[in-house]
């Protein structure tokens, strides 16, 4: 089973060429007016969705590595497009944080034409250990994209903060 990503990659929006195979740099944030963009690159859709979960919690938490992966929950979603599936996946994770007060730190998603099944590991939010960085109000449809290129998959999503 894959280990959680070590270290948080933060690059400017223009600094990174297409993803070239380093698993240490799989997501980044980019500027977007008053809000924040998440750009995720991965060799396959499963990893793309895993990293999208990591990217979301890198926006929410100052230190995503502060999350202990002691508890888990399952997610099942149907799909009519990759974009809508990514949107629904992230809004599910956001709800578990803001509604159920569960911080997530590790994701294992299986994505197919039928949809997504995933296991998410994390723990109850503890304000003493989990310093929050941004209040993510919602996932947005603006400029939402999931694309397959020569070197793998690319997703971009903007979160409202």
């Amino acid at each position, binding site marked *: 089973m894959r280990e959680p990503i070590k270290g948080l990659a933060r690059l400017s929006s223009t600094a990174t060429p297409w993803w070239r195979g380093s698993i240490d740099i799989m997501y980044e944030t980019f500027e977007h007016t008053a809000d924040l963009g998440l750009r995720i690159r991965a060799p396959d859709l499963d990893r793309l969705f895993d990293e999208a979960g990591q990217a979301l919690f890198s926006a929410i938490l100052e230190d995503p590595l502060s999350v202990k992966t002691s508890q888990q929950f399952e997610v099942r979603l149907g799909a009519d497009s990759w974009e809508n599936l990514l949107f629904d996946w992230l809004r599910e994770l956001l709800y578990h944080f803001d509604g159920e007060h569960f911080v997530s730190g590790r994701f294992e998603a299986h994505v197919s034409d039928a949809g997504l099944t995933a296991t998410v590991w994390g723990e109850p939010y503890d304000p003493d250990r989990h310093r929050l960085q941004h209040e*993510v109000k919602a996932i947005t449809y603006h400029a939402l994209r999931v694309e397959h290129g020569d070197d793998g998959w690319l997703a971009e999503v903007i979160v409202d903060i």
Partner: protein
Amino acid sequence: MGKEGYHGPLEKVDECCWRIPKSYKPGMRVDGLIFTDERLLEQLKKDQAPEQVANVAFLPGIQHASLAMPDIHWGYGFCIGGVCATDPKEGGVISPGGVGYDINCGVRLARSNLFYRDVKPHLRTLVEELFRQVPTGAGKSGRYHFRDKELRQLLNDGSQALVERDLASPNDVEHTEAHGVLAGADPDAVSDRAQTRGANQCGTLGSGNHFLEVQVVDHVFDENAASVMGLEKDMVCVMIHSGSRGLGYQVCDDALAMLRKAPEKYGIDLPDRQLACAPVDSPEGQHYIAAMRAAANFAWCNRQLLLHQAREVFAKVFGRSWEELQMSLVYDVCHNIAKFEEHEIDGQRKRVWVHRKGATRAFPPGHPEIPAQYRKIGQPVIIPGDMGRASWVLVGQPGSMQKTFGTTCHGAGRAMSRTAAVKDAAGRRIDKELEARGVIARAQSLRGLAEEQPRAYKNVDEVVDVVHRAGLSHKVARMRPIGVIKG
């Protein structure tokens, strides 16, 4: 800001208004009208907000024009500062994107009988105590917990539900837009998830641009109107900017998911999927309206509980009850809302759905929806600025009914992205800079302060100047911050 600028047409109508003609794009049903001036014009062309004004003109049933206020900037689907009215009798639609994620985000102002000289020696204690007592920042739960039945009452009855609990006074309710409640709210239209997100967030400030500020009346422009509101120079006031918290965000989120297929179902051709909408009279439209009204009622409860907590802190610090400190609510306005209102359009009285997204109602003197105390001066309008410079108190003017469906601006608008603001603040301590200007600021993180630093915002004075000259609202008083708490 924004990916690219706007290069479409902008025709000058007068000193304060520019037009995007409906000939710009096939599918526009009306013109776009942007209230601005020469000084702000160049700034607004830097992002795609004018394009969004044109896109809103596609909505079925839109009346008169797709409008934007001088604090216009890019938003999701609709621009921030956008106003549009739709007529259900002409197939008019309701659009969650025309309200925004933070349903009934708004501002309230309370006065006091304290003056700057009284508060200055205690300012640090006051701000520290406010920061301790008022929950700020992401993920914070409030001290108020409402069980299912109680939460339903808040969703149904708005801040009126707090009067019987001694958390609001009758005057607070009287001085709140719509008396703190939109009729027709349906708690059952608010999903379990939305209710769960909101259950323990009522009475919390939140994060981002939300704030609670201690302010001083810096300059009075209209002595009579200020006097009617109980404001005078150097008086200490409290301004609160917050909304419907996670409950409202989830209501919007649920609605956008519900409406994914609605444009196709109802044969509505949209240039941007984030304008997702449904006919007012459709089941989807009615469901969103009922949920949106409930979220708006929740937001009024939230701001009321924030004010209640601020009053308790003042009472503790100054050793007198809030009633003795005369901390009455001047007014509370919402700036993210859709309301069913009567307006005169092309010589006819019509009931229309007025969407105000980052725009504030500004009814003129004599309007029946204004509280009796203010009916002669016009509806008070509260405009938050940035934490270093100013905020404003205005009153609605007749021009707003003639030109903008009774609407004016809502704030300064960002001049820098959050990332750019943090970069700009590198090596600086924003709290120390503010202190040198006489402002004590506390936030959950230095990064949060950097994102919200004064330079990240446009100068609110310039925005207010346009709506004043355009006759939409009239300057009453300029407010200067002296204490700030933020998430």
